[in-house]
């Protein structure tokens, strides 16, 4: 069969296949399923950072009309609890809650009110009175707690060559510290669940990125068999890492459903999104860079001081970029964590790269300025096709192409290397560049295809427990099935987000597209292979799938498939690469600045659908712009609560903050990465954006900004008068 039919297969810029549901308000998110007899739960948060609950008065709340139950540690079901000192948090970690009177951080759940209506539950929650005994030893001030830092015991420290020797060989050294604050994911959909407990079986409509891990966490927490848990999440209103693991509202809802014998809906409030659904932690990154006069790097070290909670450990791999991005023989990466009385941090979009690249790519710009070299040429000079950290080649690396093609598109040649020389009225204009890299994992994925013949048309349904968190999974999976079955995409139905479907790694870590599509491919290929084998048709003979079903005298046929990394994959380092360019205008008197335009070049393997891939890139850029412009969660230094508790004080980028963005995809297929040549793109976009803007601000003003976010007041403090402060 020739490819004469329009399959709208892989690579086409088709509209999202589930898009009509979203624009018509018909896509169903977790809290929107019409579950009969449902009641509402409202979580209550602690108001001290460390200590014990000494008394609880639930009487007033319980008197209220409609209140069914007030759950606290006193009447909560006993759950499996965490073992060991600060066990590492993972995507399938159990989430025990309301297990004792101990309080570990400000905002920890200490109770749940269940009532007939949302209004009743909300009001009743405010009437439950807690008395606490405060422990004055709470660790809530990062600055004052440095001495408490420890080295996490997970082999994350790394070195090659000899740092001291590298620095001694250098003609120029940059030694600077870069700070990034606590940030929050804030997907637009509040974390939510409708859970029901029915004779030992749990059903949870829950907004989760990884269905299988949510299932493992529920079964682990309640110590019930995995088969008795079903998690359903067909639409996820954004995740960015916050919905990777199972957060405690889900466990509270399940527990409550068991106690009141009705389905319970718990929607986390926007304020609780700060304290109960993960965060990116504060990082202090000390960089030391050494280079020869000709721009050859001789040394690079990246030391990160950060924090975790007192109960669980998470360490953001900020130094990852410094280990692999440049050709430098002497390299050191270290980590230290301060256990603090705060929520356990966890992965936020491009954990490690997003923050680490701000430090590395700022330091690279500082070195280029010192060397009086063009920052692009400086990076190209230190390019490497080998991952010196893993000691193996990159499967493909087109960083030089990203930088050069981006430079041309952006008009880099018009950049004035000397700061403060490009002016327009009150505006100081600067250009900035940064390089980007993001690990591109690929994981074992199962999938099922159901083929149905109707006259001459074959309709295919793909099922897997993958999720679409806005990434375009429905669309690219449909395109994959269309490609491999050679049927129009309109005849493909994709069903995701249900733990009854075959297991996938879910959405996270930029592995979704490669894993899901290769999984779907495997199922489609298996279907065709089996249909051919059954009728002794040669595998290389081209026969339409409709013909195959007919020859098999079948009107319906199901096949499963599994895809996983090859042995070849393990021999290479698989990363996506990119380059960011920004033009920034800074008002020389007020420090206000506008990002006028951005160019991003992405080398991310096979682009399955440029429309949705573009969405991933501009989405990453937008969050990167948020990092540099405004995003910051502030901690009250006496009480340990967050001062920023809503969108009124935690500012995420709005429409006017963004500028025109041009995105160039490089025509690449990385067949080492996987059979379809796909690499990750979901996190590449956010990587190093903050540095490109900050570098542009230096080019505009001559002031080097090393603390995110770069607010106008910080620029004014840095002094916007003439001169370069390097």
């Amino acid at each position: 069969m020739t490819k004469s039919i329009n399959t709208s297969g892989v690579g086409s810029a088709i509209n999202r296949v589930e898009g009509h549901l979203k624009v018509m308000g018909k896509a169903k998110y977790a809290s929107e399923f019409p579950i009969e007899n449902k009641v509402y739960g409202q979580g209550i948060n602690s108001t001290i950072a460390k200590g014990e609950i000494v008394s609880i008065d639930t009487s007033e709340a319980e008197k209220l009309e409609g209140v069914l139950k007030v759950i606290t540690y006193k009447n909560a079901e006993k759950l499996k609890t965490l073992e060991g000192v600060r066990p590492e948090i993972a995507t399938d970690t159990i989430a025990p809650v309301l297990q004792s009177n101990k309080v570990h951080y400000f905002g920890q759940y200490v109770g749940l009110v269940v009532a007939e209506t949302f209004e009743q539950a909300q009001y009743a929650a405010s009437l439950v009175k807690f008395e606490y005994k405060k422990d004055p030893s709470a660790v809530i001030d990062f600055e004052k707690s440095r001495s408490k830092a420890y080295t996490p015991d997970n082999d994350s420290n790394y070195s090659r060559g000899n740092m001291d020797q590298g620095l001694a060989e250098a003609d120029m050294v940059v030694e600077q510290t870069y700070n990034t604050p606590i940030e929050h994911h804030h997907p637009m959909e509040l974390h939510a669940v409708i859970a029901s407990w029915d004779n030992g079986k749990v059903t949870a409509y829950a907004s989760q990125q990884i269905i299988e891990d949510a299932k493992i966490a529920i079964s682990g927490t309640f110590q019930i068999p995995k088969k008795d848990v079903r998690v359903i999440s067909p639409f996820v209103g954004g995740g960015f890492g916050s919905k990777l693991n199972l957060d405690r509202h889900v466990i509270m809802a399940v527990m409550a459903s068991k106690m009141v014998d009705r389905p319970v809906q718990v929607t986390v409030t926007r304020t609780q999104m700060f304290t109960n659904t993960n965060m990116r932690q504060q990082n202090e990154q000390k960089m030391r860079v050494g280079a020869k006069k000709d721009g050859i790097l001789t040394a690079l070290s990246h030391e990160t001081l950060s924090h975790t909670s007192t109960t669980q450990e998470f360490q953001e791999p900020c130094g990852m970029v410094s280990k692999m991005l440049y050709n430098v023989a002497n390299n050191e990466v270290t980590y230290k964590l301060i256990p603090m009385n705060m929520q356990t941090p966890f992965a936020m979009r491009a954990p490690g790269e997003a923050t680490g690249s701000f430090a590395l790519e700022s330091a690279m710009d500082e070195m280029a300025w010192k060397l009086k070299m063009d920052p692009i040429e400086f990076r190209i000079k230190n390019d490497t096709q080998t991952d010196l950290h893993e000691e193996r080649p990159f499967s493909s690396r087109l960083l030089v192409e990203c930088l050069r093609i981006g430079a041309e598109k952006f008009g880099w040649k018009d950049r004035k290397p000397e700061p403060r020389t490009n002016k327009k009225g009150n505006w100081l204009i600067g250009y900035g560049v940064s390089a980007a890299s993001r690990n591109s994992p690929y994981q074992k994925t199962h999938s099922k295809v159901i083929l149905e013949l109707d006259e001459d048309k074959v309709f295919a349904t793909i099922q897997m427990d993958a999720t679409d968190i806005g990434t375009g999974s429905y669309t690219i999976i449909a395109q994959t099935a269309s490609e491999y079955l050679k049927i129009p995409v309109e005849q493909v139905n994709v069903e995701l987000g249900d733990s009854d479907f075959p297991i996938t790694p879910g959405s996270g870590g930029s592995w979704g597209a490669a894993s899901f599509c290769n999984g779907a491919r495997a199922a489609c290929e298996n279907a065709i292979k089996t249909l051919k084998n059954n009728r002794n048709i040669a595998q290389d003979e081209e026969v339409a799938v409709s013909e195959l079903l007919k020859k098999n005298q079948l009107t319906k046929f199901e096949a499963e498939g599994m895809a996983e990394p090859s042995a070849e994959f393990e021999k290479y380092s698989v990363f996506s690469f990119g380059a960011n360019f920004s033009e920034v205008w800074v008002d020389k008197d007020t420090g206000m600045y506008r990002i006028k335009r951005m160019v991003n070049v992405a080398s991310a393997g096979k682009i399955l659908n440029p429309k949705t891939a573009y969405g991933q890139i501009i989405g990453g850029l937008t969050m990167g712009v948020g990092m540099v412009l405004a995003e910051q969660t502030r901690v009250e230094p006496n009480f340990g609560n967050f001062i920023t508790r809503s969108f009124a004080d935690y500012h995420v980028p709005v429409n006017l903050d963004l500028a025109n963005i041009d995105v160039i995809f490089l025509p690449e297929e990385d067949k080492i990465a996987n059979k379809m040549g796909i690499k990750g793109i979901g996190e590449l976009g956010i990587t190093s954006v903050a540095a490109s803007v900050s570098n542009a601000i230096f080019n505009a003003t001559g002031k080097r900004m090393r603390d995110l976010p770069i607010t106008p007041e910080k620029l004014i403090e840095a002094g916007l008068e003439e001169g370069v402060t390097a």
Partner: protein
Amino acid sequence: MKDIDKWNEAVDPDNLSDDENMILDAMGLNGSSRRKFLKQVSAASLSIYASSFFTSELFANTMKDLPEKTTALLNEIKVNIKVNDMVKPLTLDSRTSLLDALRERLGLTGTKKGCDHGQCGACTVIIDGKRNLSCLTLAATCEGKEITTVEGLAKNGEMHPMQQAFLKHDGFQCGYCTPGQICSSVALLEEAKNGEVSYVTEDLKKVQSGLSLSEEEIRERMSGNICRCGAYNNIVQAFKEVHTGNDEMPTWEFATQEQMDKAKNA
């Protein structure tokens, strides 16, 4: 209120609304394949398809009023809410926001709760022609008002041009802020027609009706609707296309082989 199983039974292929027919047309399902598809819809896929596709009557899927014994509500009020040209009498807790009334009592979950504090725009609906935040609007104040939600924008089985433009330009990702963005955009078209000013309007003396909004004006006037996925560029393009009637071109491209060779060998 129907649960999923009852829903399944309620799906009658012979009795579809214009909207549903349109959606199935869009999926390319006709004749027997359409019938077959409807029969095939498994319990699991109901979560994606049936509950969202099959809304034969706008309010057929609404939740029934809460049982009498539990409706001894604080400051109980009765209000007739007119949404999308249909009226539903409701008995509500006086504290109920329009947003919660729509979502929890009328089953109109297209309107989203993003913050419940009037800070994100996800709950935007159109009340008497103006965009409003339903989370800051008490349901009790809505008697006699005309409310349009995202579910009410399509007419005669045809999506509103703004919905079509959002689909074409990928003006969303996760889709959660989308109903608010679209309601905001639809009302903004009228604001431009009426010559209403904004924070970035250059000359307040020169305001006239039938404004042609600059990109900056569009961005400013859409800044009350947060999109955390960051689809702002595409949202602006979708709005522009409907506002001006001119096609907007994508701002992505692929590097050519020539560019690749030149970059490699420079």
